[in-house]
């Protein structure tokens, strides 16, 4: 699914303008990471796309179909979103009921619902937890259930809105593995909204936001090279990228000097 933002502006109130003439095109089958610090407007983009917020100015096109309050119900059939808090999106009393929720809204027949529950729980390796209540699951497991629920909708576009920000390192790893698996095995358009550069590095393309404007856009390698832009946008670069950047500016005679410099950079000595 192709997504196009055309001069989109949005503000929560007169003083806090979140997006200003925002333009962005995401191609069909592409995985794009929208990167930005807290308050940069990245989650607002996800909410606008899902029709949870209404734009003040500009248009959003999904496959050349304009997204507005009249078309949103139809458009939601083609998109699914995974939010950051795994607890607040778990609607069902059990894993099975939760995955069924969206499918029941789509008015799918019971047999089809059951088939999809089995299929997508297997895909996220949660088939043994089918009758478990949310309290019996870890944060990572709940987020995998949310992913299964989103996948079960079989939509062409998936949005991960900071879906690892409330998880522990184990849960974060589980969810990131899942995103990579979806990217490799499906031809879906994926939007990953994050402030974590490592998560963004799995994407085909990274868009960096600052104060509601795109400050840079390119492949992960191209974006990570612009270390000053990332830092100016309030983002912490990955250790490996900082090391490469620092090594580039100095000359070293031998391996030992390089090793010493690496230790120095790693511990900021």
């Amino acid at each position: 699914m192709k997504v196009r933002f055309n001069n989109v502006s949005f503000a929560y109130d007169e003083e806090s303008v979140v997006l200003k003439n925002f333009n962005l095109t995401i191609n069909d089958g592409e995985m794009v990471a929208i990167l930005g610090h807290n308050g940069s407007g990245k989650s607002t983009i996800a909410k606008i796309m899902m029709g949870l917020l209404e734009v003040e100015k500009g248009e959003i096109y999904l496959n050349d179909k304009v997204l507005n309050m009249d078309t949103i119900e139809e458009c939601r059939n083609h998109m699914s979103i995974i939010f950051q808090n795994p607890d607040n999106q778990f609607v069902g009393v059990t894993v099975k009921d939760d995955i069924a929720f969206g499918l029941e809204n789509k008015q799918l027949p019971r047999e089809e619902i059951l088939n999809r529950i089995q299929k997508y729980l297997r895909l996220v390796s949660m088939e043994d937890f089918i009758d478990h209540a949310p309290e019996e699951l870890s944060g990572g497991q709940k987020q995998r259930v949310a992913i299964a629920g989103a996948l079960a909708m079989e939509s062409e576009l998936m949005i991960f809105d900071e879906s690892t920000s409330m998880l522990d390192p184990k849960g974060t790893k589980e969810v990131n593995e899942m995103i990579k698996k979806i990217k490799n095995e499906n031809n879906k358009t994926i939007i990953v909204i994050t402030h974590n550069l490592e998560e963004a590095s799995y994407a085909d393309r990274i868009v960096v936001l600052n104060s509601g404007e795109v400050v840079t856009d390119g492949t992960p390698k191209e974006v990570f090279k612009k270390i000053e832009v990332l830092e100016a946008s309030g983002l912490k670069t990955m250790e490996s990228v900082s090391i490469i950047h620092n090594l580039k500016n100095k000359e070293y005679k031998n391996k030992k000097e390089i090793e010493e410099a690496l230790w120095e950079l790693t511990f900021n000595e």
Partner: protein
Amino acid sequence: MNNIALGQYVDGKSIIHKLDPRTKLLSLMLLMIAVFLIPKPLNNSFGRTASFIMLGGFAVIILMIVLFTKISLIKYLNSLKQLAFLFIFTFIIQLLTPQGDNKLLLDLNLNLSIVGILIIIAWIVLFILLRKFIPLKLFVFLGLTCLSIYLLTYDLGFSFGSFKLKLYEDGLYNGSFFFTRIFLVIMLSTVLTLTTKPTDLTSAIEWYLHPLTYLKINVSIFAMIISLALRFIPTLFNETQKILKAQSSRGVDFKEGTLKEQISQIISLLIPMLVISFKRAADLADAMEARGYIPGAPRTKLNIMKFGLSDLFSFIITLIIFATIIIIKVI
């Protein structure tokens, strides 16, 4: 707080678990009404025997239902524990109230002596101080109360008055009757919550409310509200525990202090709970909307209800019991 049975479904494959939730809901409601319809013990031995036989009969039926559920009795007792105070309070009030022919069961002359009262105060203070370490607190407290009453029958010194404690025979019968009646009703409702998934219960309620749709009342929204409330009860209880621990670590003691202090301590729990609940509600609404939920719009259902032979059989038995009680009541 962890023992609360509401919304705490216990997975199982018993006959009771397999019953259609509509059958369970209606049958258990009818049985509860039937328990309340059992006539109060009359002032003669025949009336009393009849009431207690009926109550005993119900106790046997409910015990059989409980055994059929194949759920540990501890689960049931845990849910009853929350209401132990209500049981005992009802029993004591009935016991001390003159009723019927006012036949006395016990007539004690209690001495109000300074020494006796000081001993009782000392027991109470000791009980409050050591309550964290006392197992079966309620029974210990009742034992101490009985012991205090016994102590007051003696003049221990510096007596300044006396009063009469009268226990009536009818009070004892009525107290036992009401105690057993509430106990049985709570057991029945616990059977329902422990063997029925909240979603199934909601579906059953939605089904029974369906006629309201002809009055343009959207029952599916009502069912969704119940379902979400049941879903979030355990989550909010966990949240409460976390806040309790967080506030305790900052020096708030929810168990000690004067009434005024306790109220302000409860406020320190209630305000974060309210803020969190509103935030959760807003996030959940977004998640539901994003997943295509439109209030009142038609939806298919994963969990479908089937009325089978076992349901018919259970329902007929319930109707027979209910009809019998009605006939006895009318006669």
